[in-house]
Each structure stands twice: as structure tokens, then as C-alpha cells.
């Protein structure tokens, strides 16, 4: 059964490159991916009962900050144990610290290589 990995990023370019990067994992049947270029749409789907195995989110987005969105997910009893990774150009210790405090599992800095992203997903979802 493939695990569901959600990508949330306002940039379609980033979503496209991320999709290309994880293509081998999709083709091997390890994961299925769902992408959102509007964080609000993702939150609205979550409210309707949508679930996932890993959330990978941008931090600086136009309408809602990725960390605020992650906080909302962590406050949802149904999803609070789901791992969340930040995928962002934001590289300051302060923001990472905030992410850690919210309960993020890790922080990936853009630009990222496909190998880096795949390794991170495999590690979090324990895919061999």
C-alpha cells in the first residue's frame, strides 16, 4: 500500500521539480503524491477528513505561513502524530527552532537535489 506524501508550496515550479524528484518512489509503488499550490485548499481538505502519511511544506507562502499551517495540523488530534518536513529557502536558526518547537520532523533547505529529497522521505517513512 503506497504511503501518501503531500507537498504544499505556492510555487508550481517547486511542486513540479519535487514531483520529478520523487518519481522513482512513485514508480516503485512506495508512495503516492498529492500536491497543493494553495495551503488553504489543503487545510480545507484536511477538515473534510483527508489524511496523509507525510506532509512536506514550504514556509514562506503568500496567504498562510507554512509553520502556522503545520501548527494547525499538529493541533488536529487525528493528525498530530503525522510527520511534517519543511522544504524551504528559509535557513535561519530562529525559524528552524520554531519549526522544532511546533513539532516538525525535519527541515530541508532549497534548492534540493532529488537524491536529498528521496533520502529524507525514505528515512521518515522508513522505506528501504
Amino acid at each position, binding site marked *: 500500500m503506497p504511503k501518501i506524501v503531500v507537498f504544499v508550496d*505556492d510555487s508550481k515550479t*517547486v511542486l513540479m521539480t519535487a514531483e520529478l524528484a520523487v518519481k522513482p518512489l512513485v514508480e516503485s509503488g512506495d508512495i503516492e503524491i498529492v500536491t497543493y499550490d494553495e495551503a488553504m485548499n489543503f487545510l480545507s481538505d484536511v477538515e473534510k477528513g483527508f489524511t496523509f502519511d507525510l506532509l512536506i511544506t514550504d514556509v514562506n507562502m503568500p496567504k498562510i505561513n507554512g509553520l502556522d499551517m503545520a501548527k494547525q495540523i499538529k493541533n488536529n488530534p487525528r493528525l498530530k502524530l503525522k510527520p511534517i518536513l519543511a522544504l524551504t529557502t528559509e535557513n535561519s536558526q530562529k525559524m528552524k527552532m520554531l519549526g522544532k518547537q511546533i513539532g516538525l520532523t525535519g527541515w530541508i533547505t*532549497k*534548492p534540493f537535489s*532529488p537524491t536529498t529529497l528521496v533520502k529524507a522521505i525514505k528515512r521518515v517513512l522508513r522505506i528501504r
Partner: protein
Amino acid sequence: MKNIAVIGDNKKPKFFESVFKQESIEYDKFNVKDILDNIQKLEGFDVVFLNLEHNIKDITNIIKNIKNLDKNIIIVVTSPNFTGNHINKAISSGADDFLKQPINKSMILKKVSNYKTLLDFRKNRIHENESFYNLFTDKIFSRNTRFNINKEDDLSEFWEYFILNASSEDSLCKLNFIFSIGEWLIRNNNKFFIVSEEDREYYYLTFKYTPIPQTVIHNLIIKSCVKESAKMDDFRLSIKFNKTTQQETQLPQDIKEEKTTTISAKEFVDSTPLEITTKMDALEDIEEALTVKINQFSSNKDRETLKAIGELFKEYASTVFLMNEFDKLSEAIDKIAEYIENADEETIDENADLIVSVFYSLVDDLIKWRTGIFVNQETSDIHYLDNSMIASCLQIEHLLNKNSSNQDNDYGDVEFF
């Protein structure tokens, strides 16, 4: 009261300046640009009158810099062009007062006298305190905040209280050290509390615990970033945090960047001249032209159309550059155009479909950016796309090169918590 500074962006003397002259109240006048370049010029001043007519968008920045230089300086904002929103922003950034124009002479003199009283109070409120906790000084403000820590949740609450105000890497490191000590004490069933105290230069956070062997904590301190700023005895451990700006000037680049003020779309559009914001129409035209050319390239895959796409991206970059504030984004778009110009035939032939998808998504991102800022004005930070666009450019470049050379280097940092 020692010194008054008047900062303005208009050479014409202001009414309150003529009052100062009539009453022989000495003051020094500065241009806003000089202050933005060198805030140290305000060192030693007691009251700053900030009168901005053109540089309103710099207001938050200037006020914060002055307060970082010296918290005691009284900042009085006065501008004929201020809206309620500007006043709120100025006050929340640390301004002490706002003078609504027109102002009369007696009001100005009364205000100046009030500032003198306020200043005396600010300068003299530190006194010897009998009930102090920290191990550094007894000359602290009369207030303190006490956190009783019995379990990890209490410690998290304490951490949360301070972390958002930590403005330097050094402070973050010290707070993390305190958190670790707290965790260690909880694990060892030591009930304790932490008291926060302050004077003009420092904050002091002091653990008060049931006696523990000093060597344990001492060993932890030696290995940590607090070793120069910690003192301890059998019952207490105090750590001091610098309030002054000297430390901030040594901050690494990324932290400094993070501290720059965010500008919302609405603020940007409101404070930008119409002739600049109307360049948005030109951007829309270029986006349309780009879509047409990308459709064309999608079917023809010819070099000439690709060149035209590169030129359109270049034009987009130049227009964005003219709109103030977006030089970083402009640079990123320019990089894309440059890459298209310089890409070799082989890379283009091998990746034509991928290039088409990349172009469509880039144009989509730019349309979303433009409408989010200029049309819907719903973006809370107009720079949200800048770094992301630069990263996307690098990413695309790597992706296309990888497809050509069949190599994948491992790059991009991952940190697991």
C-alpha cells in the same frame, strides 16, 4: 534634557523647529538618509522628532534601529502624510508619541516638558533592589517574572515565552542551554523556578533549585555558549543576555535578513507611486506574450522561439526591477533568461518537454505573484517569492544538466529534529 534631534526628509523648516528657535531649545537636524546609513549619529540624543513626508515606508525600520541603539531615546513621530495605519505601525514599532499636525506652540512646549519628566524617570528607575535573584547585580528594575517549573510542559511554556523575542543566535543558543538544564533538573526530580530580571543593558534568567553538586552544571557550562555569561552557586544558576546592539551587528547574514521588516501587499501598493504600480499592466502583457510563445515552442521546439521566450523573461525582469523593492526577484528571473540564452542545443533537444513544463509553471508563479500583490493585495509579505524563485532557477538548472549528463550530485541541507 540633553539633546533633541530632528530627522526629516524635507529641507523646509517645520513649525516645531521655529518654536525651538524662539524658546532657545537647542536641536540638531538630520536628513533621514544619513540616519538610515548611520544610526550611530543619534548616540547621546534624548528625544528624536521624526518627521517623514516621503520615506514613510522606512518608518518602522528607523524606529526599531533607534530603539536598538538606545531604548531610552524618546521618539516622537510627526508627519502630515500619516494615516491611522501609519500611526499604529509607528507606535507598535516603539515610537513614544505622535504629534498630530497642525500643532500649537503651547502644546509643543508642554510635550517637551513631559518628555523631560519621562526621561528622568527612565534614567533613574534602576535602584538597588533587596529582593534580587541573579548572581550578577542587585541594580535591577523593580519588576521580575517568575516561572515555576514542575514538569516539561512548564518548561516549554517558559521557552515559548522567550524564544519569540530572541533576536540573535547567541540568545537562541543560551535559551536552548537553559532548556537542556531544565530538562536535566526535571529528570532528576529537582523542583525549581526560573526568574527573569533586567537592567538597562542585560536580561538575567536565574534558576533557583534545591542544592545540587555544582560540578555537574559547571561541566555543562564549560562546553556551552553560556560560559562567558553564566554564574552559579549551590542554589542558583544565572545567565545574562545582552540587550545592546553591538551584539546584533555581529549576527550572521541570514539572521540579519530575517529581521528586515516584512511589507504586506496592501502597504506596498498604498505607499508606492501610481506610475510604478501601473507597470503591473506591462507585466500582464508580457505574461500573455510568454504564454503564446511557450505554446509555440511546445509544438515547434525551435531555437528562435526559445530565444524570444528568453527575451520576454529579460523584459519581465527589467520591468520588475523598475517597480522598487523587487530587485532580488528581478535577478532571479534574469538568471532564467540567461540560462535559456546560454543552454546548449543538446540540453534543449533532450529536455524540450521538461522545459515547456518549467516555463508554464514559472509563468503561473509570476501571474500568482503579480495578482497576489497588485490585484488582490492579499499577500502578507511581498518578498515571499524572491528566494523561492532563485532556488527554483538553481533547481531547474541542476535538473536539466542532470538529465543531460546523467549525474545527480547530493545537495540541499537536511536537518532532522
